[in-house]
């Protein structure tokens, strides 16, 4: 899923402080699950805005959490509110913010989150990046551990010389060296020949940016 993090309040306040009627718009999918933009976070941000703008008597904060911000139909339902608001503060991922901006053409839409990566929760409150959406999946050769994402340098042919003692990453001693993980896993699976093979330089245009997928009828 998409993992995001809330922006610092100062940054949000600088974007939005001169508007009076603000809609704080959450999203009920990925960013709810990663504690960044669900109903609870919308409530907290709305409350923060009210406290920070207590001197502004005309300040009206409304809250809404559609199931998915990145669905035109789901945002369209909110369109009738447009006359009553001056700005939208989106707590969706980048895709959500842009979907909302595409529909609410007459008022500005601001992001309240920084969209960070595609990942999974490793434990309560701990999300880890797992996929770079590179469009050219290598996991078959690397024992299901992505070197493009989890190696600090995205190397394809093995570890750099920077591997720290105990198989930790040069960049962050807290993190495991992805290639040591890959080596151990392939060794366990008796598939080390996959790591011995030379990997050609990656096709960085596997997805032509901006990416579009046009699927045929299923």
């Amino acid at each position: 899923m998409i993992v995001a993090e809330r922006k610092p309040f100062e940054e949000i306040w600088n974007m939005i402080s001169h508007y009076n009627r603000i809609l704080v718009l959450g999203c009920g999918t990925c960013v709810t699950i990663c504690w960044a933009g669900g109903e609870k976070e919308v409530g907290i941000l709305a409350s923060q805005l009210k406290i920070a703008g207590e001197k502004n008597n005309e300040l009206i904060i409304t809250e809404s959490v559609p199931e998915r911000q990145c669905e035109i139909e789901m945002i369209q339902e909110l369109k009738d509110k447009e006359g009553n608001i001056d700005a939208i503060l989106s707590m969706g991922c980048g895709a959500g913010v842009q979907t909302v901006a595409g529909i609410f053409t007459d008022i500005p839409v601001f992001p309240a989150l920084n969209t960070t990566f595609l990942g999974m929760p490793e434990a309560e409150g701990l999300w880890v990046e797992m996929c770079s959406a590179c469009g050219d999946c290598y996991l078959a050769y690397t024992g299901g551990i992505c070197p493009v994402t989890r190696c600090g340098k995205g190397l394809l042919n093995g570890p750099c010389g920077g591997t720290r003692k105990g198989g930790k990453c040069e960049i962050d001693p807290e993190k495991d060296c992805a290639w040591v993980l890959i080596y151990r896993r392939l060794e366990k699976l008796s598939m080390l020949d996959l790591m011995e093979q030379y990997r050609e330089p990656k096709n960085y245009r596997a997805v032509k940016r901006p990416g579009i997928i046009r699927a045929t009828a299923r």
Partner: protein
Amino acid sequence: MKKTREKTELSELTTGEKDNFVKNVLVTASSVSGMKTALEISRLGLKITLLEKETELQDNHADIVDQGTVEIRNSLLQKIEKDKNINVVSPASIIKIEGTAGNFSVKIKKDNDVFFQKYGAVVIAGQNLTETVPVFLNFHNTGIMSQQKLGRLLGDSPHTVSPVIRKAKTIAFVFNDSGENSRKLTMSGLKYTCLLKKNTNCEVYVFISHLIVDSGGMEKLYREARVLGVIFIKYNENYKIISNKNGSIGIAAKDIFLDADIELFCDILVIGEKFIPCIQEDGLKTGYDTEGFYQDANVYLYPVSSRRRGIYFVGECRGDQDMMRTNVDVLNAALNSYELLSGFDIHSGGNVKVESEKCKVCLTCIRVCPHQAIRLVPFSDPAQQEAKNVAGIFPEACYDCGACSAMCPAKAIDFEFKRAPLNEYSDEQILKEIECLKQDDLPVFCCAESAFLAAERAVEINLYYSPRVKIIRVPCIGRVDLIHLFKAFEQKVPGVLLAGCPEQACTHLEGNIRAKDRVKYARELLKGMGIGEERLGIVFIGPDMAHRFVREISEMLERCST
């Protein structure tokens, strides 16, 4: 649709009412404590399955524990064989325990078979490994030995003493190598010193930092040892193992009574074993204490409870326990299982409910719940055709702490709104209380189990505190949501205080720790809004600390009013 119905039926089955509780208990492993527990539970009329890892019932600690253990064990074995309520399964072990109190579904591995079996309660007894003497690198092949080894060399009569021991002129003991006091090692150590005195001619010295002789018969044993001529040396801080040029081993320590450093060279140095837990992937999800033994270090779980209702710990798996304490555990575990399964206990959890339509299945509550009371259950949304799995709270395992409610990112979990005076914990009711705050008020969220009682006590003993203090009772400060804090600040209050249980004494295990983290995060958010961190406080107060409670709130008032 048919599939949906099947699923729903399954869910009804697993959401057990007390009547549906499975009336049998799983006990593992069959150490002395396990066997005793099984017999005790059998006496109360419940069926027991006794799991044993090895091919036959045994106890790994016979050497260190009392000399009488072999006899005890044999008599227990005979009793168990005759007992019709007890079914012994071996060699088998638990892989994981799913479900909740009264209806555990236990995954068991027997030989190469893996199967699920239903149990109402589970008792984990006496499972730990012992590590012998810590390795002293520079003292290979010297006279250092463990109590276990000494016991084997000593035997039980003058004729069985090994020549190694017979040759020794001086033998010194250190009962505990680690700082903690082991009653078990003290007991066996005292016994060995007496045996040495009776059966050999050697001098026996015992180095002790603290000698605890409160277990049955220990005081007598200690006196006997002294009468027999064992010399006890009380030292402070650490002892050091030394050696001289002849290769003799010795011990150096500071004698408290002589107030002098002493050195003693001896032929054999007996150092007590270290008990180390066998941490393994056990599928219990019950946590460990700081040393890695079963059972969280939390006073509310003592003596035998775990964070999962219906799972109990007995004896050595809880740490270094002697036989007397283990016997107390055995009775407690038997009684607890009986109360649970016969419906005599007054557990009243399950006032927290999931609004299934709003659940985003993020699993936050399942990860957060300290009691493993939340699982995914099938739910058919009337608005949608398909059935999906959503979070469901099992009342028989729930303790109403509200940790899930405060954490739910979709605001899908809340206490049921009840007008009864004891159920003021729903969001709506807490927010109402917050709305009533006036500009000068100091709201204090008080844990019902600790700070709130302290506040009541303060009133009882006529301690004055400012009427500006408004007490908001919560089941646990882990229930206080960030939104509650911010809504309070919306009322322009000078500050907000959270008051909960002291560390490792949270009635709901980690509610206070989670609240502490939450306060830290909230302070960051407040800082971004220009609100100083001194305006949000958190204190940890025991239920009887009325004076401290009043002091803390007065200080808080002072801090945030200036």
